[in-house]
């Protein structure tokens, strides 16, 4: 390989049977950076994150994390390497308590002290969750479930956080609260974040750089500032 990078997707393709979900996608993120991946519904954004976490099988190309090839490693191995996923629709374990959900986030960590530290840090970041620790996760509001899903991911001490549609189904007020928290997590803890969003405006405002996916291909990439000014983007995704 060329120069060592933090995380890099090199020319991957993903097929679902005969359907090409992703074609020759390359994405790069450096340590401590937030990037966003925007695109319409069905463009392949979620598939991209699924290929990183080992849920979707990569047919061609490589995914490299801290100079290790992690392509097609099983999901339970990927998270141990320091890549945590906050999936679309939150997917909290609904009948388990909020506390149990958080504990499961640190499932593979053996050291009780580290678990406790992570736990306290998560509760400090999401004080609204703390009031609900003994409640079943399914009884939380959408915004609280999103916080819990992010908190659960943070329990694993990730270096890279993957967020799939964090604004989905949330009111504009809660959405901006969630995005502020995402920025805060990135700034205070230096965790790199790849965010997939349909809400292109919010995503680009929060991130430094962005990629635009259409029909499984990257059609545009650049700094968020540039993308926000791009007439094509404005027309297609910013609804102006």
């Amino acid at each position: 390989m060329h120069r060592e990078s933090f995380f890099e997707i090199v020319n991957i393709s993903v097929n679902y049977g005969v359907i090409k979900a992703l074609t020759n996608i390359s994405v790069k993120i450096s340590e401590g950076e937030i990037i966003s991946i925007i695109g319409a519904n069905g463009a392949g954004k979620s598939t991209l994150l699924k290929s990183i976490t080992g849920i979707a099988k990569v047919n061609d190309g490589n995914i490299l994390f801290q100079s290790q090839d992690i392509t097609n490693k099983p999901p339970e191995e990927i998270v141990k390497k320091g890549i945590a996923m906050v999936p679309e629709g939150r997917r909290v374990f609904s009948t388990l308590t909020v506390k149990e959900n958080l504990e499961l986030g640190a499932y593979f960590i053996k050291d009780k002290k580290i678990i406790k530290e992570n736990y306290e840090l998560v509760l400090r970041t999401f004080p609204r969750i703390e009031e609900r620790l003994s409640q079943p996760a399914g009884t939380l509001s959408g915004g609280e479930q999103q916080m819990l899903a992010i908190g659960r991911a943070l329990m694993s001490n990730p270096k890279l956080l993957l967020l799939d549609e964090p604004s989905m189904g949330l009111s504009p007020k809660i959405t901006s609260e969630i995005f502020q928290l995402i920025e805060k997590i990135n700034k205070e803890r230096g965790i790199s974040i790849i965010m997939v969003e349909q809400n292109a405006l919010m995503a680009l405002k929060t991130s430094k750089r962005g990629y635009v996916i259409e029909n499984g291909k990257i059609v545009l990439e650049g700094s968020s500032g540039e993308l926000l000014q791009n007439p094509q983007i404005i027309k297609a995704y910013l609804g102006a």
Partner: protein
Amino acid sequence: METLSYILQQLINGIQLGAVYALIALGYTMVYGILRMINFAHGDVFMLGAFFGYYLITKLSLPVYLVFLLAMIGTALTAFTIEKIAYRPLRKKSAPNISLLITAVGVSLFIEYFFSLKILFSPDYIAFPRPFEVESYDLKFFVITNIHILIFIATFLSLIGLYFLIYKTRQGKAMRALALDAEMAKLVGIDTERIISFTFMLGGALAGLGGILYAIAYPQINVFMGVMPGIKSFIAAVLGGIGIIHGAVLGGFIIGISEVFVSAFLSSTLRDGFIFLILFIFLLLRPNGLFGKRIEKV
């Protein structure tokens, strides 16, 4: 007075049978909970428990607690092996559930006929030697035996142990997470294959325990002895709401008590038919079982 004491006596007998069904039903329901599959070979694991017990008593004449322990380890390992050889390879290939189901039926028949071989268990009925003398205590209204007491205590302790495991341990948390969302369980780092193996072993151990208890209570064993208790325990699991732990326990007791009452007050020939009738009527009224949630149509 006599009728009342007769009813009470039948109730005690029904609880005894129900306890065994509950132990078997737990295995069905736990496996269904995490894999959405019906492990039809589970009744045969129960049978193997009785046979392991038989050999441990007759060939090795071990103390009772060791008989239980070793037989349960034996059935746990059997269940582990069945999962590993027969079901896991199919899951790895993402086979549809119907393939898993027919494989489970195949495993069940294989175990029954393989162990029917003369050089193994043979197809004959074998008298099961009780590892202790039967004693009965007349409590005025009904008679209770040390077998009743053993079955009540063993079932009670297993249930407490199981609840502790599922609701208070890390392993149990992983089982519950896996039952809710397998993909998300993997994403938080749970080795789901390990948890699946563990669940099969747990169910196997409980069925094995049920097998020996059953053989002690009704001391005749045979390679096909797991068929009807297996089906009835499956019914118990469905009745309670499949996938729900306390549903399986309650379902087991309902089936066991009903069966004994039908035998005692109606006719022992109608016994099995009545169990299916109960299931039929019950499911018409509550299609998802006692504790099953109604699944909203999307």
